């Protein structure tokens, strides 16, 4: 299992900014996520900027694994879709990528 230190080594710089993602946009997205989301603490978008960064990096890495199997050097949207399909954790993205999904390389076993 990956050491938490490796992630926290990335995110803990002792400073909280600059952030890689715009906080106002994150806040906007959070508010749109549901009627019941009314108030958001100031730190929430900052937490999300890190969480999104980790998420993007992870999905990118998994997608790249698919890319290089195809022996190309260009990461395509189909590679992203394949990575989503192959990862249980990303099931919430299935609808989003279903249009881009090629035939799955490895059919998921039923749960």
């Amino acid at each position, binding site marked *: 299992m990956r050491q*938490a230190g490796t992630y926290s080594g990335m*995110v803990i710089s002792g400073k*909280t900014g600059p952030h890689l993602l715009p906080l106002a946009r994150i806040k906007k997205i959070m508010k749109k996520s549901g009627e019941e989301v009314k108030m958001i603490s100031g730190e929430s978008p900052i937490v*999300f900027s890190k969480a999104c960064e980790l998420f*993007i990096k992870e999905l990118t890495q998994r997608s*790249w694994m698919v890319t290089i199997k195809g022996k190309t050097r260009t990461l395509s949207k189909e590679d992203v879709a394949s990575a989503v399909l192959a990862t249980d954790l990303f099931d919430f993205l299935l609808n989003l990528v279903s249009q881009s999904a090629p035939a799955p390389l490895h059919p998921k076993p039923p749960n």
Partner: protein
Amino acid sequence: MVDEQERLLPIANVGRIMKQILPPSAKVSKEAKQTMQECATEFISFVTGEASDKCRKENRKTVNGDDICWALGALGFDNHADAIVRYLHKFRVAERDKAAQNKASCSRNSQDKDEEESSEDQQPHQQADVPSNSKLQVLEFSH
């Protein structure tokens, strides 16, 4: 008319994060960046929904950083939750220090909104050489 792009995370920022983790020679198609943009946006909505549910059940109105960390753990992003709890702690400590400093020098506290892709930040670059055949040891939390 709401600009679709306004509802998503900025593609330039998303693209830059992607490049940080890929080998230097890697290319990313524009459509892949768009897909990632949508996925990351959906990720925010998904986790926020979970966090706000918790707040609702506990009769709290404000979604805070701890709720987000909890939601990340509850949804299976365990590794992220752990790292982010630490980050949040550091952030809070930094904020306390900042507040203490601000008291000394009247609040000219500018709103810290980084809207645009800022210049080089000091975060260490994890230019991963992704070895072709290695398993994804780094990110292992599918059940």
